[in-house]
């Protein structure tokens, strides 16, 4: 009985943390935001070398065959550093899809490339977590038609695309009939986009089915929850540090009870979230009967607590939190982004209700 991170897991987090800190942390995100890069190549390369891209890929395909909990732990660190890099689509959902539904030859071809980071995959399945504007993808005769919104890790070489029936397909980014549009969101660290598919030739993943789509969405939701955990923890830490440093009325503002209680409320809300994210990450692989429900709850609860922390930490920073100077808004916006992707809290709770109340 051990409900805690293993030494290996702690080390994994620490390794990724140190790499991102050395790569510049917030400053790297700022540079990315300033524009000019489609992808932060240095981060992508470095993370690939650390094995992050191959985390979930089996060892036979050049990965390290770790679990979705390990992936969630990495997502947490990426959130903590507002890292402007592909991950949830490219390193979690795409390898999962290929591994579970790809043919032998598809796996042999793509998984080593994904693991090495030489190919980056975007993932289009948002419509299965609530289709906006009636967007949908239809597969007919080996070709895809329609429109996919809010593609995860949009700046990619290939895309894994879910069709309306729960099938999955691979297409190349330069395929004929594909129109890619970047959707500028508040979170400049994670490019998101729209795909318009006008009879695009696609390679089906034959093993795909609605249950796999469900698993992908569960996994994606836990990753967003974990990312928010990291981002919110960082905002809280910065608020506490700022409150110790900043003086008004001749004393650190952190010595005022109002500021203290704001920080205590953030900590009280956030600390149990850590265990919830661990549990939900663990359940994805190890507790199939609980995985969907805990994924929904982790996603929704972290969305709510994250929003509270994002706002409160900004308030603790006073005017400085509103400016670009301390860059706190990068986390604020990342948390806001995570809240809506793959279903806002209310939608996700209704899914949970259906599981709990029908069961």
């Amino acid at each position: 009985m051990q409900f805690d991170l293993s030494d290996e897991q702690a080390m994994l987090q620490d390794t990724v943390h140190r790499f991102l800190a050395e790569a510049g942390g917030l400053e790297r995100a700022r540079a990315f935001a300033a524009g000019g890069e489609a992808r932060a190549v240095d981060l992508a390369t470095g993370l690939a070398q650390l094995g992050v891209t191959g985390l979930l890929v089996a060892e036979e395909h050049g990965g390290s065959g770790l679990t979705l909990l390990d992936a969630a732990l990495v997502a947490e660190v990426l959130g903590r550093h507002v890292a402007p890099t592909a991950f949830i689509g490219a390193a979690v959902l795409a390898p999962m899809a290929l591994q579970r539904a790809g043919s032998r030859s598809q796996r042999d071809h793509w998984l080593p490339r994904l693991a090495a980071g030489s190919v980056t995959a975007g993932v289009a399945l948002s419509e299965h977590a609530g289709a906006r504007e009636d967007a949908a993808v239809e597969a007919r005769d080996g070709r895809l038609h329609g429109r996919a919104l809010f593609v995860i890790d949009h700046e990619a070489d290939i895309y894994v695309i879910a069709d309306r029936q729960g099938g999955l397909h691979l297409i190349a980014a330069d395929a004929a009939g594909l129109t890619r549009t970047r959707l500028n969101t508040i979170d400049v660290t994670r490019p998101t986009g729209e795909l318009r598919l006008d009879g695009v030739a696609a390679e089906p993943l034959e093993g795909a089915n609605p249950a796999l789509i469900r698993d992908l969405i569960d996994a994606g939701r836990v990753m967003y929850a974990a990312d928010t955990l990291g981002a919110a923890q960082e905002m809280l830490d910065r608020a506490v540090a700022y409150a110790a440093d900043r003086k008004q009325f001749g004393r650190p503002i952190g010595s005022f009870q109002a500021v203290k209680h704001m920080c205590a409320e953030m900590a009280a809300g956030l600390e149990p979230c850590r265990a919830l994210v661990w549990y939900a990450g663990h359940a994805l692989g190890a507790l199939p009967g609980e995985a969907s429900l805990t994924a929904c709850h982790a996603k929704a609860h972290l969305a709510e607590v994250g929003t509270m922390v994002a706002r409160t930490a900004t308030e603790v920073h006073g005017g400085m939190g509103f400016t670009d100077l301390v860059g706190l808004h990068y986390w604020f916006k990342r948390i806001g982004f995570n809240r809506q992707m793959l279903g806002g809290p209310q939608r996700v709770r209704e899914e949970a209700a259906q599981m709990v109340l029908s069961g």
Partner: protein
Amino acid sequence: MDLSYSQEHEAFRSEVVAFLREHADAAPRAGKGDAKAWQKLLIAHGYAARTIPRDYGGYGAEPDILKSRIIAEEFARAQTSPGMGGQGISMLVPTLLEMGSEDQKRQFIGPTLSGDLLWCQGYSEPDAGSDLASLRTKAVLDGDDWVVSGQKIWTSTAHLADWIFCLVRTEPEAAKHEGISFLLFSMKTPGIEVRPLVDMTGVANFNEVFFTDVRVPKHQIVGRRGEGWKVANAILKHERGSLADPNTMLSRLNTLSELMKTETVDGRRAIDDPVFRDRLMQVHGRVLAMRCNDLRLLSAAVNKTPASLAGMVVKLQGTELRHELEALAIDVMGEFGLLYTGSPQLRTQGSWQRDYMFFLGLIIGGGTSQIQKNIIAERGLGMPREPKTVST
């Protein structure tokens, strides 16, 4: 991450289950049955007083947090009394083990464990709540006796207790934390008056206790004169967050879900109302988070790793969450949610309103939410303490 139990622990669980299958009928239920006999049986099998040395009337096992958890889980599952509780067993016994004299241990622990000696706790006073160390009940040495005068409040079992463990001011000249001593004395001593304290639930869950020249033999002190604050803090260490137990909350939530399947408005079930469903799921998510947090605390205790902040937030979060869960149930029932003791259509024995109020009491009691937040900020997050104020 490994949520499974070892073979040894699984075997232990089987033992407990077997014991319960055989003996559960002898357990007291709803105030009926021989509670003391049951307690003795539990101690004999190591399901109560498990880690207390045999010399003092316990079972004498090595501490094993998982075994304790297994016992608690299986007794809860079998809906069987886990033996006696109360402040004597949960707070005084561990404290005597740590700070008591050998004589005190031999005199008090055994009878306390067996239920022959019931205790109450004399801590809070009308003017010493959050600021407990400013307590004013005084004890003056007169010959071989302490003479105790003053008033305590929030004394939960004072009307039933045989003895009291009590904080009193013995050194009026010392700094406030250093002038306190920790006395033990019989509630039958002349000069003690117990008055029940009715609370908002309509029940006297607590008492006020008045002392007028109560004579306590000099040796009935734990620790030395002026060490009472230290002794009291040793006790606080043993106080459990069990009132905000997430498993209880989860079972309460299930009861609410069932209720929502039968409550209707204009013929429509509450469970089919999307707004109530959403509120229910908000609470559910928060309860799950607290349950995972509890698992983390258990694991940290087993593996002796630190999880201090995770522990510090339990009381604050748990009591607030439970209060909100009860509030949701009342809203679901609407006007029926208003019914209270004595109404024929009462739901779940009126427990929703009662617990709605009782958990507001718990938000306040045992360190108000404001004090909890101070503690989380200062001890948990290391934020600066408030500067000393110029006394006015």
